[in-house]
Structures are given as C-alpha cells and as structure tokens.
C-alpha cells in the first residue's frame, strides 16, 4: 500500500513538472516569435521537450513497477485469502457434514441421532442447538408413546370390563323375548329395541378393541389354507336374511375352481360381512348387490358391487379412515360404528392383500378385496 501511495505522489510530481516544462517552452516560443535571442530560445524549447521526455520515461517505468507491485500484492492477498478460506472450510466441513448426516437420520425417525460438538464456535453452537432439538424431540416422542400405550391399555381394559354388564343386558333381554307370548306387543317391541342397541354396543366395543389391538400392533391373524369359495358363500349366507328384509337382491358369481387362500377364516369372513353390511345398510330397499370372485393368476379378487346411491369423491377419499361415515342423514338410519372399513383394511393388509373402493355417484359402488392365493406352480415341479 505504501508503494501505491508513493506512486501517487510521484505521479503528482510528474504532472507538476510536466506543466512547468510546458510553461517554460511556451515562454521560450513567445520569446522566439518576438525575435529575442532566437538561438537561445530555440535551445530552450528543445531542452524543455527533452526534459519532458525524460520525465515521461521515468514515470512510465514507475507505473510499470507499481502495477507489478500491485499485481503481486493482489496475488499474494488472494492466495492468502484462499489459504485462509481453505482452512476455514475444512474446519467447518466435518461438523457440517455430521450435521447433514444426523439431520437425515433424525428426519428418518432415528431419534438417537446426535452430533459431536466441535470445530469453530459457529459450528459448535449449531451442533449444540441440533442436539438440544433432537433431545426435545426424543422426550416428546417418549411421552407420546407412553400416552399411546395408556390409551391402548385403557381401551383394552374398558372393552373387557364392559363386556360383563353387556352380557347380562343382552342375555336377559333375550330371555324376555323367549317368553314373547307373555309380553304385550309394546313390551316385546321395547325389548327388541334394548337388544338392537345392545348388539350395536357390542359391535362398537369389538371394533374399538380391534382398533386398539391394531394400534398396539396386537391385531394378529392366524392364517391357514382356506377354501375361498366356501368362505365367500359362508359370508353371503350369513347376510342373506338382512338383504331379504330390505327386499334387496343379493347375487353371487364365484368363478369355479378358485384356489385356496392363506387366510384367517374368521377375519376374512368379518371383512366380507362388513362390506356386505355396508351395502345392505347404505343401499335403498330393492337395490341390487352382487358378490363376484375370480382368480387373477396370483390373487383372488372379491368384488362387492352395489347399484346404490354411490359415494361422493370427497367421502371416497377418506372412506377407510376411522369414524368416516356416510352423510349425516344416512348415518341416522345406518347402525354402523364408522370403524368397520378401517379395521377391514388393516385385516386385509395383514394378509398381504389390498382393499379398495371405487364409486360414481348415482351408479353404485364397488369394494374390491384382493388376497394372495396359494399357487401351486406345476411348471416348477416338472
């Protein structure tokens, strides 16, 4: 920098000297034009021109030197900065890489993810903040898990404790109905209402229990080779009376020679009965319901198709969520719990299958169960 200042001073001196030289030359030329000592005046003009040439040579050499100096200074500065930065970057890089890696693990659900605090004070602060955040996340997750466990335990215990009184209510109501001939029609009807509501409570209780088990990872199935045709026919037979009661046509079309399923018979029956119950309750009287089953080559596909009112897109999106039910107007009439489809989906998925729904408003709805079949690959044997 001192070099540059000196250069600027020299430049100033050069300008002043050059200006003085021009002044002298002009004075000499004036004298020449006036004819005063022409030889001396001419010599003075030439002398000033030569002097300026010397000054010019001097200053251009100074300029070159200074440019070199400044250039060298710049290069040295840049190199220094680069070296400094490399040092900075390398001391920040490791901690930052650690942070990125730990954030990835944390986001992936590994709440044990922590970073080693070190390096520059900035990265150390960042690392400390990350660790505090991870700590807090872990603490909250722990609390939430504990709450979840308490909730599951509560539901399991409650549904267990409620079963005994419900057994009495349902049992004695049934007992009364066994002596129907001794009851007035109104009394008999009253007992029917008690029974209907008790059954609804039992259903709700069973559904809640299944959901609590599902949440606790305790919803289990006992799969064994099961005849698909018999299973479907059994579910249809169970529901036949309810369809007749609402003058609905229930047809079944089961492809012959369906393969066996690796399935928990009771649970898949529960799923099919749930789908049929929904069709029965949500479709108007006189509606048509069809159960179709065929083998796709890998799965057995069971469709429950109705020609009822259909399900609007927005409801269809959430139909497998808990407590998702049809329109309020519908649900007044329909006795479901809003849990059946959520449980059915869990059960089918436990079997490695899928449960889906399609519907066009005004054109009915189709619920499709796909369950992996037991395929005996003859080609492999031979």
């Amino acid at each position, binding site marked *: 920098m001192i070099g540059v200042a000196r250069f600027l001073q020299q430049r100033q001196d050069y300008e002043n000297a050059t200006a003085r030289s021009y002044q002298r030359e002009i004075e000499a030329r004036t004298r020449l034009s006036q004819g005063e000592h022409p030889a001396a005046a001419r010599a003075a003009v030439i002398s000033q021109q030569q002097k300026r040439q010397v000054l010019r040579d001097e200053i251009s050499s100074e300029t070159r030197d200074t440019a070199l100096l400044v250039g060298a200074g710049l290069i040295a500065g840049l190199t220094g900065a680069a070296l400094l930065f490399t040092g900075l970057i390398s001391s920040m890089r490791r901690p930052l890489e650690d942070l990125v890696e730990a954030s990835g693990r944390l986001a992936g659900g590994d709440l044990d993810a922590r970073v080693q605090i070190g390096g520059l004070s900035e990265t150390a602060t960042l690392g400390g903040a990350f660790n505090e955040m991870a700590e807090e996340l872990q603490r909250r997750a722990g609390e939430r898990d504990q709450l979840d466990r308490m909730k599951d335990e509560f539901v399991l215990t409650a549904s267990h404790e409620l079963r005994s009184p*419900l057994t009495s209510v349902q*049992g004695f109501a*049934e007992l009364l109905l066994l002596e129907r001939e001794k009851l007035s029609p109104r009394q008999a009807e009253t007992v029917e209402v008690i029974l209907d509501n008790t059954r609804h409570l039992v259903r709700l209780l069973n559904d809640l229990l299944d959901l609590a088990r599902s949440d606790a990872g305790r919803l289990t199935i006992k799969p064994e080779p099961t005849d698909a045709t018999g299973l479907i026919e059994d579910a249809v037979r169970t529901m036949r009376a309810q369809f007749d009661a609402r003058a609905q046509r229930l047809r079944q079309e089961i492809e012959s020679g369906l393969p066996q399923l690796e399935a928990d018979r*009771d649970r898949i029956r529960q799923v099919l009965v749930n789908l049929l119950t929904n069709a029965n309750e949500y479709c108007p009287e006189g509606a048509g319901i069809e159960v179709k089953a065929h083998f796709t080559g890998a799965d057995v596909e069971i469709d429950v198709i109705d020609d009822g009112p259909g399900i609007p897109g927005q409801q269809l999106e959430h139909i497998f969520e808990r407590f998702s039910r049809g329109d309020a107007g519908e649900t007044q009439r329909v006795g479901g719990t809003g849990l059946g489809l959520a449980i059915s989906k869990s059960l089918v998925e436990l079997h490695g299958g899928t449960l889906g729904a399609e519907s066009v408003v005004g054109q009915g709805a189709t619920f499709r169960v796909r369950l992996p079949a037991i395929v005996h690959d003859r080609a492999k044997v031979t």
Partner: protein
Amino acid sequence: MARILLADDSETILLLLRTRLEMEGHEVETAVDGQEVVDKVSAAAPPDVLLLDAMMPRKSGIDALRELRATGIDTPALIVSAHTEGDNGADHAGLAIDAYITKPIDFDQLFAKIAELTEN
C-alpha cells in the same frame, strides 16, 4: 340332559346362565370362584361339563381347571371369557379346554357345544 358345574363371580351372570341352561333341561350347580369349583368336583361323581369363567377372584377358572386336571379329572371344560378369540393365550395348552365362550354369550353356540360334548 347334562349335569353342569357353572362358575362365575357375578351373581347376575350366574342367574342368567343358570336360567337359560335349566330352560334347556340341564341340571346346574353353581360356584362363585375357582376354589369352590375345586371343592365341589369330586373324582367319584364329576359333572358332565364344567362351564368356568376365566377370571374370578381367589382362584380363576383356569387355575381351578389346572388343579383338577392335575388330579386326573378329565371332565370336558368350557371357559367363558370376556376376551375375544385373539387374546386367549396359548399358555392354556395341556388344560384340554374344549372351547372358549366369548362374552356376550351366544347361547345357541353354547347349547350346541354342550350337546356335542355330552353326546356320548
């Protein structure tokens, strides 16, 4: 018809079960816990069927059955449980439990089971 020893710690349930079983023509004796079951069952004249609540104070139906089996009594046993199928443990192996009856009780199913166990 069958001679049935019925055990439950709830008087209401005892009354219900007893009434329904007697209406079906069965002869019913009752107990309020597992200890009473063990006391009432003698090897000389065992009942035809044991119908025991799984959970009772003092001694559960399961524990009573375990004691009876240990003394060589092989009377058919039905266990009434508030648990549904999935919760009935596999640790009851060796107790020769013929069926679990889930609350609320499906009486048609219960009567069919008793008939099946006492056919011979």
